[in-house]
């Protein structure tokens, strides 16, 4: 390795500088402390913590998890400690690392979104927000804002007025036209877009004829959804000028590279954390090795280098 010059892995997403493009997806990495025995958090590009609401939420009735071929359905229902307990109990640990911390925020109303953003905006140690307008597992709020361009615009605009911090909006794949939502979110002042959240799904126990999830439906994640995520990232980067962070079924460095080549400025690792707690670090190492092998000095030369016609590969 000493014979090679280490390639540059650092990227910028809006005004956010990351040492590498690998983030943890919200809801799959807890508040970091859960995985501290397995992962050196300082090595991550960014950490996105569990969806946080104004008040604590107890979540949906179990069972909340069911495995499906190459995937899993979940219906957690945004169980979380609430913004105050997050600041008091969870943030101090996260502050001890150099890795940027982004908080995924969720509200049932626009007011709730802006209140959380302004509370967290005053706190040291938070680099930005991921606005969750795409959770499929809650009754009110969330996805309601994410499936219609006008509603998405309103909530993003309101939060934008509240905070100057980096603002990324996580989009739902459960829509007819992802591009129109993305354009709307951009117009409302978002710095970046992350996609995709889970795809709504269902599973039935044929013996009892009951749904396998307590919430009846849930969100599908894991390798099964990667082709859909990749297609949606490609559609959005092709039509919308703000940075896109790709997420959905990324299990290893090869999956991550697909998203980067398509044009994602960074990626998030979600379900893979459950299967391999070191997935994020393995992905960072794998990307670096790929760049060395291909003689690419800077990851930014790879991002968006999708070769669409013969001979266009540089």
């Amino acid at each position, binding site marked *: 390795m000493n014979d090679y010059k280490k390639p540059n892995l650092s990227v910028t997403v809006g005004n956010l500088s990351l040492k590498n493009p690998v983030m943890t997806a919200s*809801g*799959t*990495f*807890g508040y970091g402390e*859960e*995985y501290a*025995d*397995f992962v050196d958090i300082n090595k991550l590009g960014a950490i996105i913590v*569990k969806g946080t609401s104004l008040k604590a939420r*107890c*979540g949906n009735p*179990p*069972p*909340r*998890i*069911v*495995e499906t*071929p*190459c*995937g*899993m359905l*979940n219906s*957690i229902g945004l*169980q979380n400690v609430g913004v105050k307990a997050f600041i008091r109990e969870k943030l101090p640990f996260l502050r001890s690392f150099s890795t940027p911390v982004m908080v995924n925020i969720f509200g049932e109303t626009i007011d709730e979104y802006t209140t959380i953003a302004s509370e967290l905006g005053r706190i040291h140690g938070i680099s930005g927000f991921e606005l969750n307008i795409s959770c499929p597992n809650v009754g009110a709020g969330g996805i309601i804002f994410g499936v219609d361009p006008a509603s998405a615009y309103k909530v993003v605009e309101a939060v934008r007025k509240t905070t100057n911090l980096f603002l990324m909006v996580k989009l739902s794949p459960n829509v007819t036209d992802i591009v129109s939502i993305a354009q709307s979110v951009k117009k409302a002042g978002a710095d970046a877009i992350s996609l995709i959240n889970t795809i709504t799904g269902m599973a039935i126990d044929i013996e009892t004829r009951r749904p396998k999830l307590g919430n009846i439906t849930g969100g599908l994640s*894991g*390798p099964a959804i990667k082709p859909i995520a990749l297609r949606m990232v490609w559609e959005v980067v092709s039509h919308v000028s703000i940075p896109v962070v790709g997420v959905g079924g990324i*299990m290893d460095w090869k999956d991550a590279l697909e998203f980067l080549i398509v044009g994602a400025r960074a990626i998030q690792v979600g*379900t893979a*954390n*459950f*299967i*391999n*707690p*070191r997935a994020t670090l393995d992905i960072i190492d794998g990307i670096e090795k790929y760049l060395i092998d291909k003689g690419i000095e800077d990851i930014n030369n790879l991002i968006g280098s999708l070769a669409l016609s013969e001979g266009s590969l540089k």
Partner: protein
Amino acid sequence: MFQVETEVVFNHQVGPSYYKIGLRAPEIVHSASPGQFVMVRVSSKLDPLLRRPFSIHRIAKKDSVSFEILYKVVGKGTEIMSSLRQGDGIDVMGPLGKGFSILPHPKDLPSQIIYLVSGGMGIAPLYALAESAVIDGRKKVAVFLGGKTKEDILCLDDLKRLGVEIHISTEDGSLGSKGVVTQLLEERLQIPSNPEVIYACGPIPMLKKVSLISQECHIPCQVSLEAYMACGVGACLGCVIKKRLDKGTETYVNVCKEGPVFDAHAVKFP
């Protein structure tokens, strides 16, 4: 907590669909206690995707480096697991969760007796507890084994070797007394002098009943619970059960992190 590539020491069939696997993992063995569990990645393929949680069945003596899992083949994951051979590598995370607590032996007092109530696979974590309670905790142990048929009564030879009191019941009467294991427990509790603690693991209706019985007799009771789980470390919040809090309130808690062993009287059983 460790994530280690363990080596399969053995993988034997011990019943119609029951297996016992020995895994070499000194890091896990040295820090594990009875009632804790591990998350096993049965193959590096993407289907089945998730790790599988298994109770630690036996933690080898201090000089050893391996632990055992007792498992039943119930689906894709355990089927793959049953095909593993000696020398194969397998990715394991552990030890995870909170195990059983054994009360310290009071000075100058005779050994206290504890009851272990198992339904079918419930013996998986309870055997580790029995071994530790007899050897390190200087407890007397009475084990109550229940199953549908005699084929579901596991670890009998091991328990006999340990020299513990054994009660058996099967639903079809093919071994021990005919009926359910909680009947045996109730009969034994007719004898004055209660156990120090009742420990139980098995199907939910059984645990519910054991909890009720222990509550009526004012005996502390610890239960080991099972749940669908994705991460095993408290991140995914997928494996919750309802727990009673003070003042009549309830909350969801993670089986993986706050459990899998709980004070039975604080669990709100479904």
